[in-house]
């Protein structure tokens, strides 16, 4: 449509950039914020905390039935065993793709997401379209992500409306019985732990 010929945001990137720079200068000037603290916060989630943590948890669950049991019954504690805990993951729950069930996670009201195991969410997870549609037409959404579910599979959508954060435990791919946990973890993508993909080698 003709929308394409028109700018999609009300404020130019330059304007916002300037506004944010002014805000930071102001907050630093008032002694409210230490810019090194801001750097540290950004750096933590850019480089330290990310979906490798979640993949570690998943691979462990695939290879250790007792761990898996603990993970499904008390995810927060089981995940902490592996060293992951804290902000935006104070209370976690793991939902398993098993039998004829596929799970999908969304936050329709904002962008709740299990930071300690997945880091910060991808921009699409926070988009209006995903938040609006994941609960009404999850199969259509999944098929846009390239995931066509069999008709007899039930889709369970988890809308994170409170402080419980959800992580999908994907199905272990066939033919991986011989692989060690470190190799298995490489098969677990962030998208698989949100539920918009299956575990497996990257396409």
């Amino acid at each position, binding site marked *: 449509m003709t929308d394409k010929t028109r700018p999609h945001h009300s404020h130019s990137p330059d304007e916002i950039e300037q506004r944010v720079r002014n805000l930071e200068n102001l907050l630093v000037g*008032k*002694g409210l914020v*230490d810019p090194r603290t801001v750097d540290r*916060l950004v750096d933590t989630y*850019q480089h330290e905390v990310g979906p490798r943590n979640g993949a570690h948890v998943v691979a462990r669950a695939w290879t250790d039935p007792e761990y898996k049991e603990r993970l499904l019954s008390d995810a927060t504690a089981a995940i902490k065993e592996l060293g992951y805990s*804290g902000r935006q993951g104070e209370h976690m729950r793991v939902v398993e793709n098993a039998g004829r069930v596929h799970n999908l996670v969304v936050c329709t009201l904002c962008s709740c997401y299990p930071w300690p195991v997945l880091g910060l969410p991808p*921009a*699409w997870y926070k988009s209006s379209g995903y938040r609006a*549609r994941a609960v009404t037409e999850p199969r259509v959404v999944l098929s846009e992500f390239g995931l066509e579910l069999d008709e007899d599979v039930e889709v369970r*959508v988890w809308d994170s409306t409170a402080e419980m954060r959800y992580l999908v435990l994907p199905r272990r791919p066939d033919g991986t019985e011989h692989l060690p946990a470190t190799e298995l973890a490489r098969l677990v993508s962030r998208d698989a732990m949100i539920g918009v993909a299956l575990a497996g080698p990257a396409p």
Partner: protein
Amino acid sequence: MNSGHDLGGMHGFGDIDQSQRENFVQQWEERVFGLTLACGLLGRWNLDESRYARERMDAGEYLRGSYYEHWLHGLERLLIEKGLVTVNELESGRSEQESGLNPVAAEKIPGILRRGAPVQMRPQSAPLFQAGQLVRVRNFHPKSHTRAPRYVRSRSGRVSEWYGAYVFPDLHSASGEKRPAHLYSVRFEAGELWGERDAEERSAVYVDLFEPYLQATEV
């Protein structure tokens, strides 16, 4: 409040832009993220207040704006509402008076993030509902903050799990008071939410709902 943020079930957004696979799309977003967290650590507002501050963004601006524009709006709003900066300062970008507060030091960040801020509380009463029970979400339309999305109001579902008692966000955002409320995961069949004609087959939505949102319903 019923506003632009309450997106479940809205139409007209088209395909999801999957190309945006990173959290930060533009450089300034990193700063907004860090500033928001750093200011939050001053302890002048809680998480529910910061959500409510974003929700009060004009609905059109919210829907047109990018995610971190919501955060930027919310942060500016809270800084003013809580008296940490003045409108003048925000517009000029120049500090007119030092805050006298101590900013949180970078060294404290790892510990703070690792500890997080749990919101589970000791219950003050037994839970009213049990797993398996049919409940109906109340029909209510507060102008204030709530975590009961519009699409589940008046709809009935089955309690899937009781999670314990947690800080009740509707009150927490309004007054800062931490009052425990039982939290349940409630399963809604898609047909019950969207009507049989418009719902997908074999699909259900699990929504986390606080006890004050719910009432018992007849089968």
